[in-house]
């Protein structure tokens, strides 16, 4: 690990000043940052430990939504009574990620900033990685890319976004609230993560010196019919090959509104408005679920090693819709 300066600001003002210094990286739980620093993939000049900031609460908002502090640990959020009751989708997604130890450490803000598990990105000995070294190429295109993305890719990068939490938050219309040198702003989660394009090193909309303070979720009509389904190589404690977060609002047998987001297959948490469009106003049955899954993956671009993900993601989505609606074959 490269030497760095460790700072633990006591208040927001001090944290903002420390965060704006060039080469600063924010430390929450450390599960991603410390790992990548050990691998020499990240080498910040200063590490700003933000855990003393007052971002640790989960509170109801006046409109029936919830406000989640950026420092709430994944395990605390997953088991929070309000989340389990009103946003079970989020609770399921959090508990499908990582291990109990890592969930005890990982924060909401850190999870939003989680970086890819692409093995070429994580191996500092590999020369070609546009995410680590812009314009150096992408070793995954012709290499081992079984775990890589089929949606939102570019010829510069096919690295998959690893988070489960973000997939559920995408289906739940989360808004990310940040504070920085020029004040506060709100970023809908669908706009927070960037597509790789020709600059896969630019991963989020978070600017230099900005700190995520909290996330809000609007009141959700999907609590009764939602589900997170994650398919992975082993039963637990593995990253997704494909996952689906779905929320349905049913009127009898008809789907009144729907939210669909996919994980494990996209370069960012993947909201599928195509699938939602194929569901709304239709009957809640498997035929329509299959059509929605087709629509969700219609734009997929696969490579030899990950072509299976197109079918797998479709089946994962159909299964999630079946479980959410209670209607299966």
């Amino acid at each position, binding site marked *: *690990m490269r*030497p*760095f*300066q*460790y*700072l*633990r*600001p*006591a*208040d927001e*003002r*001090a944290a903002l*000043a*420390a965060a*704006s*210094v*060039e*080469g600063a990286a924010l*430390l929450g*739980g*450390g*599960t991603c940052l*410390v*790992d990548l*620093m*050990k*691998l020499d993939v990240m*080498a910040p*000049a*200063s*590490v700003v*430990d933000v*855990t*003393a900031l007052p971002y640790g609460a989960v509170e109801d908002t006046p409109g029936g939504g919830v406000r989640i502090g950026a420092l709430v640990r994944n*395990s605390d959020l997953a*088991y929070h009574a309000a989340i389990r009751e009103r946003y079970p989708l989020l609770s399921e997604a959090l508990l499908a990620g*990582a*291990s*109990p*130890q*890592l969930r*005890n*450490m990982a924060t909401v803000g850190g999870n939003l900033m989680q970086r890819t598990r692409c093995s070429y990105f994580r191996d500092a000995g590999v020369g070609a990685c546009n995410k680590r070294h812009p314009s150096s190429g992408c070793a995954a295109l012709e290499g081992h890319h079984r775990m890589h993305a089929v949606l939102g890719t570019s010829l510069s990068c096919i690295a998959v976004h690893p988070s489960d939490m973000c997939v559920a938050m995408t289906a739940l219309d989360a808004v990310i609230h940040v504070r920085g*040198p*020029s004040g506060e702003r709100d970023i809908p989660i669908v706009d927070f993560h960037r597509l790789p394009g020709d600059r896969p090193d630019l991963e989020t909309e978070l600017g*230099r*010196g900005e700190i995520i303070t909290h996330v809000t979720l609007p009141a959700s009509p999907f609590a009764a019919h939602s589900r997170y389904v994650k398919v992975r190589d082993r*039963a*637990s*404690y593995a990253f997704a090959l494909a996952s689906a977060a779905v929320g349905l609002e049913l009127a009898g047998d008809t789907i009144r509104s729907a939210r669909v987001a996919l994980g494990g297959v996209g370069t960012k948490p993947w909201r599928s408005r195509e699938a939602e469009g194929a569901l709304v106003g239709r009957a809640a049955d498997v035929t329509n679920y299959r059509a929605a899954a087709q629509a969700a993956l219609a734009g997929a671009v696969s490579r030899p090693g990950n072509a299976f993900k197109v079918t797998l993601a479709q089946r994962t989505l159909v299964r999630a819709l079946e479980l959410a609606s209670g209607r299966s074959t």
Partner: protein
Amino acid sequence: MPKAQPLVVGSPAPCIDIGGRAGSVLSLPPRGARPTVLVFLDEAPPDGRAGRPHLDAIRAELRGLGAMLVVASARGLWTFRPDDEIEVFASPPDVDGRDLERAQHAYGIAPLHEGGGALFVIDEAATIRFAHEFREAEGRALPLLAGALSIAGEALATRPAPSRASFSRREVVVGALVAGLTLAFLDACARRPPPPAPAAPGPGPFSTTVGEADVTFIVNGAPRTVRVDPRVTLLDALRERLGLTGSKKGCDMGQCGACTVLVDGRRINSCLTLAVAVAGATIVTIEGLAQGDTLHPLQTAFVELDAQQCGYCTPGQILSGVALLREGHARTDAEVREQMSGNICRCGAYPHIVAAIQRARKAV
């Protein structure tokens, strides 16, 4: 004149000429290929007596940093180059007050006679890299400045020779300056009024670690202090500094669970936890579970049910299991397996591990 918008980091530094004695002109910031610390404050240049210690300290630090210091004040304009004596460019009444006011306005700061001041770090490309306005430092700005530069100097000294192309020496100098100044000023602000002495070991109002630092935490019931670089993980601090080798280093990247310990009662991976980040915490390792010769019920169950083969993952399995019992989320075997998924056993002792946890759960 209305107060302008304060300048933000990344903006170009305005270049203002200030007229001095006999038609001479001082440019703010001075033109030249060297990082500059530009300070606006309401203080006169230090004279040969009271200000001397601070002055010596400041000069020593500037020499180490290779930066120059320019102080603009209605009571005098003075510069410090690292290798030279203090140069008083102008004293009252020679300072052109209108020029000074213009400079303050360009940098977006309040009039100085209201107390306080402002500090900017400007790099060689005339870009502002750090901006800080201080309000209450009246009368103690010089010691503050000396302290800040000292921290910056220390940061520079403890940083290894830059070997990567991405860090030029200039960037290191500017980076160290900025880091040091940020800390010292914020530290000074955070300490006003002085906080009461902490009752328990823990991070201060604004903690910083440059190079090695003493970190104190409670390990298995006793306060322990280790001197560590901020890079040292909790796992390495426990094993290498405190001799507590029960916690194991398996993968060292949060994927196996052999390093699991309890921090403030919660199970975590100590290999991904910086020791400095858990200063003041209460830590329990496998060495701290038994009460004298009486084993923890889960330890007893592991022995009775032969829940290990090679034993390498066992301390982590047991700490994880102890936390699982407290958390109360697992009742069925399937739930126990899921809640123990963060602890890998390459011998495959899983069936007996699950059985041991179930026995202890029913016994507790």
